[in-house]
């Protein structure tokens, strides 16, 4: 019995060290960051109307292009910061088989349009409404901005979480054109909901 107790003590000490090593291995990683299961998978399709209304745009229509899907909202500060870079990138790559699709997330179309009014828009990009958040759900949006990269075959090959910029966007597209898979990267904070 006494010997048993001794080993209970040593066992607890050892278990504590093992447990601590496991906990220590998690330092520096973001516990809220989830690896998107969409990477390397066919992109969820969508068919959405532009914010102003009119003819719907579907992902199939854009097959053969590299499609950059950006989720944004007028209440999202990071989205405002990155918008000019998205616009210039969309313009720069407009004749290179790259299409930018901006999908409003948890935002009313008038508010989104007002946002575009001040933040600017590209003639080459599409700005779509997502009623019921169906597309946001299908893409697994946790917080915005989130930007997905879909290659010519309709496979999700990249995802940027947080505020992106023209360099990161362009470099990601360059990599996809070279046949690489950029994967997921985090460039900054995201905002999860309007009341936050």
């Amino acid at each position, binding site marked *: 019995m006494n010997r048993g107790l001794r080993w209970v003590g040593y066992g607890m000490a050892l278990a504590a060290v093992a447990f601590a090593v496991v906990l220590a291995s998690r330092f520096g990683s973001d516990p809220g960051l*989830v690896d998107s299961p969409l990477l390397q998978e066919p992109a969820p399709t969508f068919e959405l109307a532009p914010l102003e209304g009119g003819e719907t745009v579907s992902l199939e229509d854009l097959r053969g292009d590299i499609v950059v899907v950006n989720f944004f909202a007028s209440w999202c500060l990071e989205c405002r910061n990155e918008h000019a870079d998205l616009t210039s990138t969309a*313009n720069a790559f407009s004749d290179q088989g790259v299409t930018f699709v901006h999908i409003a997330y948890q935002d009313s179309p008038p508010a989104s349009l007002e946002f575009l009014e001040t933040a600017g828009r590209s003639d080459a990009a599409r700005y779509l409404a997502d009623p019921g958040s169906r597309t946001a759900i299908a893409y697994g949006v946790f917080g915005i901005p989130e930007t997905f990269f879909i290659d010519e075959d309709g496979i999700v090959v990249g995802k940027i979480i947080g505020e992106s910029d023209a360099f990161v966007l*362009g470099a990601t*597209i*360059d990599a996809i054109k070279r046949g690489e898979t950029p994967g997921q990267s985090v460039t900054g904070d995201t905002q999860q909901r309007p009341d936050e």
Partner: protein
Amino acid sequence: MSERARNTLTVIAVAAMAALLVVLVATNPSSPDRIEAIGERIKCPVCQGESIAASPSPMARDMMALVAERVDQGHSDEAIVDELLSSYSGAVLLDPPRSGLTLILWIAPLAALLIGIGVILWWRRHPPDATPAVPSLERSRAWRLAPLLILAGAFAVIVVVAGFFLQDRAGPASGVADLAGQDLDEVSNETMEAVIAANVDNPQVDGMRLALAERYYEVGDFRSAFPHYLAVAGSGAASDPQAVTALIRLGWMTWEGNREATTAIDLLDEALAIEPDSDTARFLKAQVLWCGNGDLEQAADLIEEVLDHSELNPESRQVVESDLAAIRAGEPCA
């Protein structure tokens, strides 16, 4: 009533009431709400820990609407959950599956309960020795074990610290690109155009502008190169060598592309005003003077100045010398 009869009656009453209660509960007609039940299994992605059924956030409501629609369409619970997990990953499942990697989670508490019962039974059969301890002996023992204790503690600290420093701590990818410090080899023209367009007000962008303009210049795309050189030449923030390069290129393109000798010479003079030692500017100016204005004398002077500098490599020196000979001989330019 005798005690015995009273007991019997109580047993019967308890048994009857318990049975009735079990029947009542078991036949509870209310069926659980399927939509709610599915929603309770999914973590709201924009909240902390709440399920989409509990969260009042708009996103959770939209997800609940999707669940309701799928239920209406006749999808099974698992199919609906899988659909959500396929985009959000297993991290949003509040109800870990009783299979695979999370099976252990369900088994472990049961195992703990059984082990606990086992330990209690074992403890009852093997009561501890009632040997009274001898404190003095214990004290000496403790001294022997003190180093062990310290060693264990130190080991633990080392392990934790090592764990902290050794693990791969990949920081987030570059945020807003540091425009000055980028390796541009793998960057496409379009990316550079996009970065430049997005950073027109950023003085740091001049380096990238120049690099992009040089790329266009090298392939002879003067039309694309021209605006970028012009922007660098006109940028107050560009460094002197950057401005000189831009002015020289602008001057040469003006001559080569448009045959406008006067403008070209003005631009090259501007470059020389910033950098009087620029042999390239001087040489190109000589070429323009020779070929455009026919001012052979000044052209020859400039070429001689170029030749006075010893840094020219033999090859260039040969070209320059042959040009000088041609000018001296009054030959028209090639």
